[in-house]
């Protein structure tokens, strides 16, 4: 049954919210493999997909799941898979092929601690993997990093539109905390923007020339040309898809930069320090690729300093440093291995850097 939503406020778990948002956005194919802390996504999909005449498959591995997404997307269907860090590593092969074959897809990473089997606590240690490649070859994903469930809901819907618009895989990079937490959100209804028709889809060649979906380009110079075509898309995304959020930037002497759940924890500390009259602000990239490099460069003036806070050993901080380009001091505070900071801890940390 198609549930039509009229801006209903509900209390939901992150993993279930993103699954329902995907259904609302027209996702009709989901394949996944169990891994904590994202199990609610396949569980939810296994019940909801049949209700909307969609397809749910519990795959034999993450490799199979991402390749099922590859096949589903090739038919023109909206398709999604989800996993957590070790499983996302397994999906990298398929993600590279999706990028190479220009197939739209949505991939959710509910990050946990690593490396290796790591643990099952929330983490942000897959920033490099999501933003800098992960799989082989020159390609980029559009990467969304929401910080609450409302944004998770909204960006999940947007992810499907952008995947179709650019014919790219889009990643939603959250973590175990956001996936597992419950909070209220407004289930806004989905409105599809105008998108190009999927004339490339494999449906059988009735009334047209055969279509081919492939990523092999063996002819002299063919692959180079192909890579430039992909680059043109990534450049276009850099111009039009950057999203960010900021708090008290104007008169700040210190700007905390953070993404996802770390930014949310940091915002509590920043607000408290502001109440005490401290000139501190928060800058939060929402798209990790394209990274808001121009926006960071723009706010980099005077004696302003930056402090990047992440739940890892220092990954996004490299992009902050590249954006600042030597014009300001950039410090880093992080908690790796599934370590989570508290607002009180960050209050002390930020104060120390003031």
């Amino acid at each position: 049954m198609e549930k039509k939503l009229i801006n209903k406020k509900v209390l939901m778990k992150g993993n279930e919210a993103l699954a329902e948002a995907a259904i609302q956005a027209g996702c009709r194919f989901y394949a996944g493999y169990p891994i904590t802390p994202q199990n609610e996504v396949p569980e939810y999909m296994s019940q909801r997909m049949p209700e909307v005449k969609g397809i749910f498959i519990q795959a034999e591995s993450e490799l199979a799941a991402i390749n099922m997404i590859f096949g589903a997307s090739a038919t023109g269907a909206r398709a999604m898979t989800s996993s957590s860090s070790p499983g996302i590593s397994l999906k990298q092969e398929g993600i590279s092929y999706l990028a190479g074959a220009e197939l739209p897809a949505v991939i959710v990473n509910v990050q946990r601690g690593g490396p290796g089997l790591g643990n099952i606590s929330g983490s942000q240690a897959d920033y490099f993997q999501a933003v800098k490649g992960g799989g082989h070859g020159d390609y980029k994903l559009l990467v969304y990093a929401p910080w609450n469930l409302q944004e998770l809901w909204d960006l999940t819907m947007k992810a499907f539109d952008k995947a179709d618009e650019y014919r790219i895989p889009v990643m939603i990079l959250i973590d175990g905390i956001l996936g597992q937490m419950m909070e209220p959100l407004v289930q806004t209804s989905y409105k599809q923007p105008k998108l190009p028709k999927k004339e490339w889809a494999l449906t059988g060649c009735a009334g047209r020339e055969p279509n081919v979906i492939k990523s092999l380009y063996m002819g002299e110079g063919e692959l180079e040309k192909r890579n430039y075509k992909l680059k043109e898309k990534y450049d276009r995304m850099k111009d039009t898809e950057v999203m960010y959020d900021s708090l008290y930037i104007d008169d700040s002497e210190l700007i905390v930069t953070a993404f996802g759940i770390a930014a949310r924890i940091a915002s509590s500390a920043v607000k408290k320090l502001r109440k005490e009259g401290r000139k501190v602000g928060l800058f939060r990239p929402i798209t990790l690729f394209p990274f808001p490099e121009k926006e960071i460069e723009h706010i980099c003036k005077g004696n302003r300093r930056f402090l990047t806070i992440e739940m890892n050993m220092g990954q996004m901080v490299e992009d902050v440093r590249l954006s600042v380009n030597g014009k300001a001091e950039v410090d880093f505070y992080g908690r790796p291995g599934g370590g989570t900071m508290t607002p009180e801890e960050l209050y002390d940390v930020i104060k120390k850097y003031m």
Partner: protein
Amino acid sequence: MKKISKRPESLKPVPFRFCAGCGHGLLHKFIAEIIDELGIREKTIGFAPVGCAVFAYDYFNFDVIESAHGRPPAVATAIKRLLPDRLVFTYQGDGDLAAIGTAEIIHAAARGENFSVIFVNNATYGMTGGQMAPTTLLGQKTTTTTKGRDKRMTGYPIKISEMLATLEGPSFICRTSLDSPKNVINTKKAIKKAFQYQLDKKGFSLVEVLSPCPTDWWMSPQEALPWMKKNMIPAFPLGVIKDKWEVGNGK
């Protein structure tokens, strides 16, 4: 004059670039002829596998998807589930299906996915230059078993069709060969049956075809065929291995 043979519409008018004596050309032609005979060219989605047959999209005149090594059964699962009235077939070599893609083929078969698999067993990795495959015969020389495959070092060739036939899911599993005119005709019949089973929604079908690779066997095409008969067929017996729908045809 009566025309008795012509290029099938399902094959583009381009020459094959396979080595002399290779089995892929024959198989491509059969698949194209069968699709013409069934009148389903515009409802077919085929696969270009990693390996020598990757250029299938240059030859087949219908929709083709190229997929990662070993993964066609996962990709085909999704396509067929979303487009249940199309003919979907994978075309996979022995490295693809019986080594790197064992998980995908076993689980697609176990689920009884309603697509067909053409499994080309030439006992070697053709495209990469003749390394040991999971189906390389004991004693067979390859570039990674230069003294002949030694079971003490590399174990035994995998009989994937017999393995899959132990599952409940598959509907039709059959092994054929391209070593003689009779076996060539049987190969075409078996592929047509597999496709017909799919169209009749009877479930998962697989035809394993023993196919010559003279180049990587370091033989002439003339030597390759008797070698197949003498060495490959005893190791990989021909015939219907499983047929869920034909009573008394289990063996």
